[in-house]
């Protein structure tokens, strides 16, 4: 096998790594031009994204596809560390989109600001780890890839090294992250004890035929706990709010929009096989632990976690006074919706959850980018501080409003489509999953209130009397005036991109649903 054949499928990873190394090299050489570093990062991510989309079979880019057709969506032979699946590629695209949004927005930073190289380099490394997660087919490979992205994100939270809140958040993030890693690896080791392998393909092939029911149950239990930390699921969610709140807001956008979806995809990877084998029991031996079928137990556990996560996230979001904390809790509740996908475990449900993950990048990631921009304009952290923003900055207000409406699941936005597909998939699966859909719908109804409250504050409340002009930061120097309403071109472009995606796929979702659906079908049929 020559190098080209081997390296071809890994072009996205190579671009990310090369970009990161180049950025660090420039930093060592004392080239600290923020525009240049940012451009390298954006270019690396864009190139990676292009190849991922080409590999997904997007016709205009077909010539660039590098994964041979025989290597994608087929049941792997042996016990490989990685496998290419369409759904994995879709998730790679999702992770890269989140990174693209954040790196685009960060182009707006003042060119003399310190730390840009570290920020972009770590962002690329974190993305690299996430992209590797999406092709994992071995528990150890999966957990190591998560580790790569996690360590980069711990550092990202604290990259400014000045703000004590960021440092505290990073510390908390690091300790909790280490705990979650320990739990996950312990779970994996228990499964190794039962199955004699950590390979997901081999585990799926062995099914329940190995005995050791207690080991298997405990192993999956620890894996649920460890991965639930990553995906911010109740009751392992508490860290997320403080970290999202304390991190620099652009980094929060990346954490909420991109990094936590790693946990969701890991849930897909690890739990699909056991969940799936009960749904297609006729085709093979059901996945059992001794006499107990494992699938229903997992499905009920995941369903309960999903309902708890949605409900608790929503209820707590209702009570928040600060914008970032409100968005953080809403982010937790959205993770609950996504978990419905794997709890139901059918290909429509997986497709719905994947679309929900995709939508969340642009709705929540975009919303945090707006918050970061607005904060730089001198607006305070409280929801009350956004009074009259929709009147003072109508375009920005409308964009933010659209993102919130999409999060609330209002029709003709992508947030509605993803929830509609997800909940109808739950109804389609019949049984008690119908109640999962009811719980999800009631939760969306509940969430309307706190999103609508922000809209009311932005558009209907009178602006507070201001001490200084917009753009002044109390106790600081006048920030550099940026074009496009004080946001800068980069951030404006990122926000515009998010708005376009929310609207375009909201009105005509077929464009994105088609590929996701076939990816989910292949994923289920591979049954990794």
């Amino acid at each position: 096998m020559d190098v080209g054949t081997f390296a071809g499928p890994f072009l996205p990873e190579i671009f990310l790594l090369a970009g990161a190394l180049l950025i660090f090299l420039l930093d060592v050489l004392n080239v600290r031009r923020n525009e240049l570093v940012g451009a390298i990062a954006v270019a690396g991510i864009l190139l990676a994204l292009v190849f991922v989309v080409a590999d997904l079979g997007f016709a205009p880019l077909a010539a660039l596809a590098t994964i041979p057709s025989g290597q994608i969506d087929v049941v792997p032979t042996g016990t490989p560390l990685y496998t290419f699946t369409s759904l994995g590629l879709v998730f790679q695209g999702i992770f890269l989109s989140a990174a693209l949004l954040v790196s685009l927005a960060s182009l707006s930073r003042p060119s003399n600001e310190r730390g840009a190289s570290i920020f972009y380099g770590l962002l690329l490394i974190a993305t690299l780890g996430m992209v590797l997660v999406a092709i994992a087919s071995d528990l150890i490979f999966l957990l190591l890839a998560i580790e790569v992205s996690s360590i980069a994100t711990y550092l990202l939270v604290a990259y400014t090294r000045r703000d004590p809140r960021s440092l505290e958040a990073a510390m908390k993030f690091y300790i909790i992250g280490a705990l979650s890693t320990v739990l996950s690896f312990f779970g994996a080791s228990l499964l190794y004890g039962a199955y004699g392998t950590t390979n997901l393909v081999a585990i799926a092939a062995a099914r329940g035929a190995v005995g050791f029911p207690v080991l298997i149950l405990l192993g999956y239990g620890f894996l649920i706990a460890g991965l639930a930390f990553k995906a911010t699921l109740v009751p392992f969610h508490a860290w997320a709010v403080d970290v999202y709140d304390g991190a620099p807001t652009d980094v929060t956008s990346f954490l909420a929009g991109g990094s936590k979806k790693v946990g969701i995809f890991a849930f897909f990877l690890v739990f699909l096989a056991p969940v799936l084998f009960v749904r297609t029991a006729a085709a093979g031996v059901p996945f059992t632990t001794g006499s107990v079928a494992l699938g229903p137990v997992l499905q009920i556990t995941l369903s309960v976690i999903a309902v708890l996560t949605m409900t608790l996230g929503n209820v707590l979001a209702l009570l928040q006074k600060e914008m970032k904390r409100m968005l953080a809790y809403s982010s937790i509740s959205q993770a609950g919706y996504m978990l419905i996908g794997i709890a139901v475990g059918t290909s429509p449900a997986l497709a719905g959850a994947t679309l929900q993950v995709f939508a969340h990048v642009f709705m929540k990631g975009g919303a945090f980018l707006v918050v970061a921009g607005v904060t730089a304009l001198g607006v305070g952290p409280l929801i009350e501080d956004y009074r009259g923003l929709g009147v003072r900055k109508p375009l920005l207000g409308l964009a933010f409003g659209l993102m919130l409406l999409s999060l609330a699941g209002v029709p003709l936005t992508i947030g509605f489509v993803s929830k509609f597909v997800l909940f109808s998939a739950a109804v389609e699966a019949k049984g008690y999953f119908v109640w999962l859909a009811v719980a999800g719908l009631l939760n969306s109804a509940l969430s309307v209130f706190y999103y609508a409250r922000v809209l009311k504050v932005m558009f209907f409340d009178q602006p507070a009397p201001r001490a200084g002009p917009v753009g002044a930061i109390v106790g600081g120097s006048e920030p550099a005036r940026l074009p496009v309403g004080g946001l800068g071109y980069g951030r404006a472009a990122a926000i515009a991109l998010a708005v376009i995606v929310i609207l375009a796929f909201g009105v005509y979702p077929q464009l994105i649903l088609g590929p996701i659906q076939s990816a989910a079908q292949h994923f289920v049929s591979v049954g990794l």
Partner: protein
Amino acid sequence: MSFPLISLVLATLLAGTVATFAAGRFARWVALGTSIAFLAEVALLLLAFPGWPGYSSAAIPGFAESETYAWIRLSWMHIDYAVGVDGISLVFILLTAILQIATVVYSWGEEQRPGAYFGLVLLTCLGCFGVFVALDVLLFFLFWEAVLVPMFFLIGFWGGPNRRYAALKFFVYTHVASIVMLVGLLALVFYSGASSFDFSSIYAAARGLGPVTQTFLFLALFFGFGVKFPIVPFHTWLPDAHVEAPTGGSVLLAGLLLKLGGYGLIRWAVEVLPSGLHTAQPILYFVAFLSIIWGSVLSLSQRDLKRLVAYSSINHMGIVLLAIALDSSLGLLAAVLLMFAHGIVSGLLFMTAGSVHHTYGTRDIASLGGITPRTPALSTMIMVGSLASLGLPALISFPAEFTALLATWNGLAYWVFIPLGILVVTAGFYIWMMQRVLFGPPKGIPLEAHEVPWYEGVGMGLLVVLTVLFGILPSLLVNVIVSSPVKGFPGT
């Protein structure tokens, strides 16, 4: 018919709504223009319909005018942009067009943010029109929800002193109900194994459902649609919403929004789940009689003109539910006729209540008296509305209520005396109200009170004319309704 007339109507309403929001001071003119265009297009729809000469071919069986474009195509989910009209929906569309133009004219003097006000009025009517033409579950749900939001704002911004509470209650009640409705519709699609979310395929597939499944689905849909009716005991949002809503909002609420529940029940539950209806019939009868009696008893004790009309709406919609529950073609005809009549008449009554409030500063029945000499035109309209509401022959409600009672007699024999007796009670109360407010000794009349402004008069006058017209010529509507190929109607 190849010409996409229904989409054209939707586009007209959408463009008109957007333009109205943007038009500021000229909003009322834009709204009026949109309403006239809408009415003209509805007239075209009527002309191209079997009840009238010039009938054309149909793409979806049973729907004379229909358009279908692919929207979302997944292996397990086919969603189309599918719209169409049959006789039943056409009657409701006509009602929408009439009430829209009447409301716009009646509210001509609205000074508080006219752009937003008229825009929201048009948006409500757009949503209602969409509900009446949608033939796809998702599209239906989109429009159904689209009605909710503008009405919420109409009540919440232009309403009375307690408007925030009323708007929130309206929103919570109807939103929770529509969630149940959505789950019911989705379950209908997936449990029946329909090949798409399209009405015709659901209609065909639902025949294969067992009676137990049908009953559960029917009850879920009945709850979802019933709260909009509103059925007792989920009716309490209605009086609050009506009392606090601005007059235009009340007219649309009673005239159109309540009809959404009835239309939805007929279209998506009664037609589709016949044995579900059959099993659930006792429940429907019980709820219907409860609504009839409860609405009428409570309307007896009301002092506020608007509350009086609101509770009598519950009573009337109870009769509609009874007529639907009868599961006969005559009952269905009666239900549709009743809803049309109630739309016109309650719209008229809410307008008169609003005008009384503007002119005399109160809607309290007890503190008003002998207003006829001061405002003869307004009194005449109140009289026409009240007489129509109590079912005087030659006015619009009479043929509807007569058909309903006849159908009840056919289906339930002596039970007919419950709605009949209640009708007498309501009639008595309306007459008593007229006697006190219109003819008694003058009371509570401010010196500066004078006849209503021209636009309010024109708005109410339009509805008065239609009350009389359709009272004398109910066949205009009946011919259209019975052209629908459902429930043993002769069809076309």
